[in-house]
């Protein structure tokens, strides 16, 4: 993956906003649960704090890990394969043959919309892999590229197998 591409820099802000939003939801849920638990089963209040405290810690950690995720998340699309790579301490490489790609889905939540980004889901017959966010223009071009390459690859396979 020498020519692997990084995600656009604005994805960092999108991730930050998304994870801050998650923290807010966790805090809100913690508040509501604490109120309900303290009213009906006050002896278990500590358990509520423990569960949501751990959730809060986890969410905070994901914020701290944004630069790490950004630095090591890469993708590359060639004529035959889609390559995805993530992590440094725990490294993960994925190779998807382009002729296994069934379709490409573009998702845009409100946060991604603010930053004019789109998530690209590459769907195979087994599962799907998501590129978290690239610019709208890139996403459209990418989805078209993958679909065209996948179609071409299949057609080539069909012709080559019938001619033999």
């Amino acid at each position, binding site marked *: 993956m020498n020519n692997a591409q990084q995600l656009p820099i604005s994805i960092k802000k999108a991730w930050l906003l998304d994870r801050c939003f998650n923290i807010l939801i966790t805090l809100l849920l913690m508040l509501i649960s604490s109120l309900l638990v303290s009213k009906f089963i006050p002896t278990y209040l500590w358990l509520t704090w423990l569960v949501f405290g751990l959730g809060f810690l986890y969410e905070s950690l994901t914020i701290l890990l944004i630069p790490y995720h950004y630095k090591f998340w890469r993708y590359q699309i060639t004529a035959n394969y889609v390559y995805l790579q993530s992590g440094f*301490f*725990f490294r993960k490489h994925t190779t998807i*043959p382009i002729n296994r790609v069934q379709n490409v889905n*573009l998702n845009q939540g409100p946060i991604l919309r603010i930053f004019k980004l789109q998530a690209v889901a590459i769907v195979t017959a087994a599962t*799907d892999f998501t590129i978290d966010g690239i610019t709208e223009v890139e996403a459209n071009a990418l989805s078209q590229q993958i*679909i065209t390459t996948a179609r071409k690859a299949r057609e080539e396979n069909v012709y080559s*197998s*019938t001619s033999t």
Partner: protein
Amino acid sequence: MYIRQHPLNIFKQTISTIFSTALFLIVLPSFLFKINWLSNLVIIASICILIFSFYCLQYYFEYFIIEDEQLVFYSGIISKKITKIPFKNIQAIQKSQAWYLKPFQLVTLSIENNTQHANNVILPLIKQKYALQIDAARHQELSNQVLKPIVLYPNTIHHDSTPFRFHYQISNNELLIYGLTSLGIFPLLGVVGSFYNHISSFLPNQLFKTPSAKLSLLGIIATLLFILFFASGLFLFKTFSRYYHFTIKRQKHVITIEQGLFNRNITHFNLKNVQAINLEQSLLRRFFHLYTINILLATNTNDDVNNADNLVLMPIISEYKLAKFFADVLPEFDYQALKHQKNQVYWRYLTLSLWFLVWLPSLLLLWQFGLHKLTIFIILLDVIFILIHAYLSNKDLAVAIKPQQLHIRTTKLLTKHIYLIPYRHIQELGQSESIFLLNSLYGNLWLDVRNQANFTRINLRYLQRSTVAKIYQQFKATTQTE
């Protein structure tokens, strides 16, 4: 051109949602807020308006476009989603029309894509002409396509010209061995054991009423034996009723499996949908050299007995009969017993298996209750499990790279798994490893194979890097020439 669902759908969905949540709508506000009927009515009306507004928004944001080669479906109010389905990839189109929608010529389309794990795309209440247009576009795309002749596997031994017939029925003796060597008896033992206090009423009173300690011990043993026999009997009955007269038939490329005593279940599948073969051997069956043959399929079998993830092709078969079975039933798969490989990764597996100690602090609770012997026994059991797990994982790990097929042997929770996977059915593969493994001679590899509505991920840990590279090379070579 953007095509939307018919506005009638807003009312249909609103009414349907209100009816399905009617009880919730009526009871909950008064229960939560203890208010009078008028306020309750206002709350209900507000919720109904909210539901209606939601479906209005959905009507506005959900639409589709029929392009030359694909259908593009836009959905989502807050989180927007664009799904592009090439007409070639559409597996099936299901059309439904309620009687009251006939005058309006409206239908609901459910489009099944190639990807079974994703939900079908539903186009609710669209005009019939658009449904016909989609259907026509799909047919046109399929007719334009040069049809690929169905080649099951390149190493086919039997020629298609010779009609292939095979018939096999499992014997009661084989079923008995299957039941006795199955580990499924343990959950039943637990269930029957939970009635321990009531079991004494089924046994002779003399066993319990005698003050002698020897006889009361006899009573306990009798009770335990009763539990064991009763649970075994129940399990054997369950096995027999499920697999009674288990029959495999093969006619050309279609395999038919018939099974069941009370409910006779028949499953048909085409061999071209077989993604991989899995041979499974539990710890107990290792001693008897017995295997279960499972099939990973690309289609849903709707088999009501497949309680496991895989479709069972053969509940039980001796290791020595496997080669003949494959030659008779599945000659398309190149089966050869994997040779023993001298792996030297026992210590790595042992270190990895130490994760099974993670749950041990929870035993503190048992220790606090004074159950010291039980706690020590469970810890010892866990340690023995870890040692055996690491030993078997190291011993069983083996890979044979054939020209068209990957042959893998691995162990998961003491159960040996052998996979025969044609490269053409590996959907994707990858490597996943920590920084500590990077400079070593070993690497981890995973690969995905479609299995009915889901997929199976096969993890291979601590393979030699040269083997990983060879698998990649062979996989890439095969995918490019498919």
